[in-house]
């Protein structure tokens, strides 16, 4: 019997895995790996923190932030205490948050500092959790029953008012167990988290499944295309779980790149006719861009268009499709290579009953079916009948082998004028077979006197093209399904839910309510870039290749940022803001985008250079280093007082009086500690010339940092070392003191501590000035006192100057 509650599951998982990596957290300058032990200890401390806030079983806590291990820490800590989690989408509007908080009577909001929201409720910042947690804490012991509420998930839904889906511990844990039973997992899977954790697909398939298996999930700081590509490469991602819209976007980007390349086109054509293993080999040059390990693409959340599925399968990826609803925690069916049928969403998950009514509606029953809609008995009664069947609202057919084929949503189903059923999804799928139709919604246009079956289309092509497409599609449709009218949607994209589902209702309303005298502005002919520019500038001025972006379209720096962000979202291409100057024209911007596309695929594998990792070199190096430090021991006796050196990675901040300071640290750290310690050293001094660089790098473990300015570069260097699990010694005075007294710290140290969010340990070195002051060549014999202060972390809302000041005081007072 699988675990029925989160505490039971945690018990099992933490008993099985300890040192394996559970999460990788990629922050802007700093990558941190969390072992299962780390997760356990942080969940325990978070649970203690929640208890100290007076929260207990049955209280509600809302979480709103980007995906991160800290999001999950909060989620697991709540769940372990029987506290109800209310996950909120990061992009929720303040009004939506207000409504949900009031309705669920949440007692605490855990949110990201970047979620601008001002409310009365007590708030804890996700970014501050690391430094708020108590030293120790335990998550065990709270009585949690299988039928206790685990979370209330508010579905933004593609239509209507949000409803809170109440999911119990039993619901979610059973869905996870059934999913694992159904999908024989890869042993060494590393997955990349892309779908918001506020969505059940990401929670069950993205988090719980790999967590149960001892696998690693990688969380990235932003969903910028450059960051996604880097993560795929550097982390050796084997699996991504995502929504169809993302695969569609990625496909378009590949096609844009290969469009100019005859070889790539030829390879793709070959792949369509070759058997699987050969096809995989042939498409390698294209797949290479997504890292050499990526194998599995798991898709859910919306229907995957057939041609998108074919595209990725031909490239050599295993595409797993799932179908489900938030109400089923969320998985109900799945299909994988080996157990797949074209256009099917796969077979029923084990331990669930599946049936189809006479009207074609799909019914589900099992332990993963939700308990109720929060405070909405009427709505619950509409979807769960007396026998416990969930009416999914989806129209489906099941073939004799158990494969489920979705036909459409009951509520999307349209009625033709002569009373025949029309499944808009069928027609949309046919339209989407045309590459230039980016998306389509088929609906009844009630604007005219007589309702007309209308296709609303996203495309960059002109009216003539659309007319031809609609004509061709109509050839293949039954007469009652024929498209009578079409509209080119004036925006660059349809309104969508956070999981990128089209908000049909909004489109329906827009179509119905449009004024007769003000028809939709037909999309002017032009490129997608021009469409994005039109959206950002909010102007209907005509945009030509010669239009100057900044002056002609009044794009100020905030809008410039919006433009760059939109280009990333819509075209998956990272454009450097600084490239857009006051004189840049539209044509030049398109060139910049083109270049960015090309360089992205070239530089994807870039690596930052660190210490050497060759074993032989390392051996010789540590022997020479050991010998030198031993020799130094003849001159220098070290006395350490204060705290013990904490396990890394941390940043040591020390005063600087002598060239002996760095070796002193290496001696204090001991043989083992030395392997995990580096010293930030002035680039202009210690890295002048190749020999000096080599000695500094290998014998003193120095990493170069700039003394003047260049904070960004230092951040990257030091962040890289910390990411490798090494502690870094920083001397914030910038250079050695000439009189033994501590000089003012450079402000850069405050920036470093504020941006890196690692523990900072102040250290005072006394005696090295007497042994080897600046200017002398040979050390005297004597004693060095090393006083280690207490590790400290700074709140994200503390300004860098204050941190610099605090650290200076801390070192002086030791």
């Amino acid at each position, binding site marked *: 019997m699988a675990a029925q509650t989160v505490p039971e599951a945690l018990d099992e998982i933490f008993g099985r895995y300890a040192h394996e990596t559970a999460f990788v957290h990629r922050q802007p300058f700093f990558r941190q790996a969390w072992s299962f032990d780390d997760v356990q200890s942080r969940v325990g401390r978070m649970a203690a923190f929640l208890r100290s806030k007076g929260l207990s079983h049955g209280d509600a806590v809302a979480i709103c932030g*980007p995906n991160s291990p800290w999001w999950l820490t909060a989620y697991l800590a709540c769940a372990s205490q029987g506290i109800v989690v209310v996950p909120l989408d*990061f*992009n929720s*509007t303040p009004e939506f948050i207000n409504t949900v908080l009031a309705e669920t009577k949440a007692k605490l909001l855990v949110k*990201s*500092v*970047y*979620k*601008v*929201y*001002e409310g009365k409720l007590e708030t804890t*910042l996700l*970014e501050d959790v690391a430094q708020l947690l108590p030293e120790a804490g335990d998550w065990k012991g709270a009585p949690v029953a299988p039928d206790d509420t685990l979370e209330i998930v508010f579905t933004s839904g593609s239509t209507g008012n949000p409803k809170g889906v109440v999911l119990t511990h039993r619901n979610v844990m059973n869905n996870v167990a059934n999913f694992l039973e159904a999908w024989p997992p890869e042993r060494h899977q590393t997955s990349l988290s892309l779908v918001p954790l506020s969505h059940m697909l990401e929670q069950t398939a993205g988090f719980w499944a790999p967590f149960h298996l001892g696998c690693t999930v990688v969380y990235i*700081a*932003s*969903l*910028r295309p450059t960051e996604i590509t880097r993560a795929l490469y550097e982390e050796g991602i084997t699996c991504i779980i995502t929504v169809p819209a993302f695969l569609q976007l990625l496909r378009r980007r590949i096609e844009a790149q290969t469009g100019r390349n005859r070889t790539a086109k030829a390879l793709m054509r070959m792949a369509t006719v070759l058997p699987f293993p050969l096809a995989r080999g042939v498409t390698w040059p294209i797949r290479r861009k997504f890292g050499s390990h990526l194998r599995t693409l798991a898709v859910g959340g919306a229907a995957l268009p057939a041609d998108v599925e074919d595209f990725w399968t031909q490239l050599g990826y295993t595409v797993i499709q799932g179908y489900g609803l938030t109400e089923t925690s969320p998985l109900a069916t799945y299909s994988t290579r080996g157990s797949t049928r074209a256009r099917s969403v796969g077979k029923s998950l084990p331990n669930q009953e599946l049936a189809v009514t006479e009207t074609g509606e799909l019914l589900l029953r099992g332990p993963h079916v939700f308990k109720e809609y929060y405070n909405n008995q009427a709505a619950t009664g509409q979807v769960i009948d007396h026998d416990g069947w969930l009416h999914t609202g989806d129209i489906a057919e099941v073939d004799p082998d158990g494969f489920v084929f979705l036909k459409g949503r009951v509520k999307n189903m349209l009625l033709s004028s002569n009373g025949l059923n029309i499944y808009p999804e069928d027609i949309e799928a046919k339209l989407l077979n045309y590459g230039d139709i980016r998306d389509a919604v088929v609906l009844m246009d009630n604007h005219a006197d007589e309702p007309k079956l209308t296709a609303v289309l996203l495309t960059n092509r002109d009216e003539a093209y659309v007319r031809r497409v609609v004509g061709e599609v109509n050839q293949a449709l039954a007469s009652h399904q024929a498209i009578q009218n079409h509209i080119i949607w004036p925006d660059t994209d349809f309104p969508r839910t956070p999981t990128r589902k089209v908000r049909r209702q909004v489109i329906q309303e827009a179509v119905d309510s449009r004024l007769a005298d003000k028809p939709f502005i037909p999309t002017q002919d032009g490129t997608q870039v021009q469409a994005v520019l039109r959206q950002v500038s909010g102007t209907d001025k005509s945009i030509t290749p010669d239009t100057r972006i900044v002056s002609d379209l009044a794009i*100020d*720096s*905030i809008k*410039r*940022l*919006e433009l*760059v*962000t939109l280009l990333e979202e819509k075209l998956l291409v990272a454009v*450097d*803001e*600084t490239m*857009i*100057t006051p004189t840049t024209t539209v044509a030049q911007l398109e060139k910049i985008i083109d270049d960015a596309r090309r360089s992205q695929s070239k530089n994807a594998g870039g690596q930052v250079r660190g210490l050497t990792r060759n074993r032989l070199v390392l051996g010789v190096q540590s022997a020479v280093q050991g010998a030198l430090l031993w020799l130094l021991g003849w001159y220098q006796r070290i006395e350490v007082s204060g705290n013990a050196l904490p396990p890394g990675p941390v940043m040591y901040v020390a005063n600087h009086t002598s060239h002996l300071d760095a070796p002193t640290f290496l001696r204090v750290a001991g043989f083992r500690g030395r392997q995990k310690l580096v010293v930030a050293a002035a680039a202009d001094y210690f890295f002048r010339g190749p020999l000096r660089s080599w000695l500094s790098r290998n014998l003193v473990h120095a990493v170069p940092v700039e003394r003047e*300015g*260049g*904070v*960004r570069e230092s951040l990257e260097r030091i962040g890289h070392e910390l990411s490798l699990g090494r502690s870094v010694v920083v001397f914030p005075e910038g250079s050695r003191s000439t009189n033994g007294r501590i000089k003012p710290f450079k*402000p*850069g140290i405050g*920036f470093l501590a*504020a*941006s890196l969010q690692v523990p900072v340990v102040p250290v005072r070195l006394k005696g090295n000035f007497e042994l080897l002051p600046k200017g002398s060549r040979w050390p005297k014999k004597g004693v060095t006192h090393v006083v280690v202060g207490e590790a400290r972390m700074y709140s*994200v*809302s*503390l*300004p*860098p*100057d*204050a941190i610099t000041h605090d650290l200076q005081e801390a070192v002086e007072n030791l």
Partner: protein
Amino acid sequence: MRVACGVDTIDLTQIQSTLRDATQLQRMLHAGDASRQDPEHIAGRIALKEATMKALGMPPGSWLDIFVHTHASGKPELSVSQPPHGLVSLDGSISHHGNLVIAFVVALFDDKSK
């Protein structure tokens, strides 16, 4: 000695979409910049950063190279991660009126230093 100034205005009604887009905020603001959550405050920070970029001639998009913090008196204080050559002093001021936020920054350079 040389004085350089930069000024920026923001209409609060024009940046609602930016304020709701966490992705964009993350590229403009340090965590500390958003420590107060009212739109007026955040718009003030953004305007101040823009004015600083103008005064110092920084490339567009240098948002995160500028740090703003509020002095106990309520006056904003500015620092930049890579001060341009010769910068001696940097001072900024913000004013709010209705939906308008205006930020003014003055920088003092000593061109003879070094």
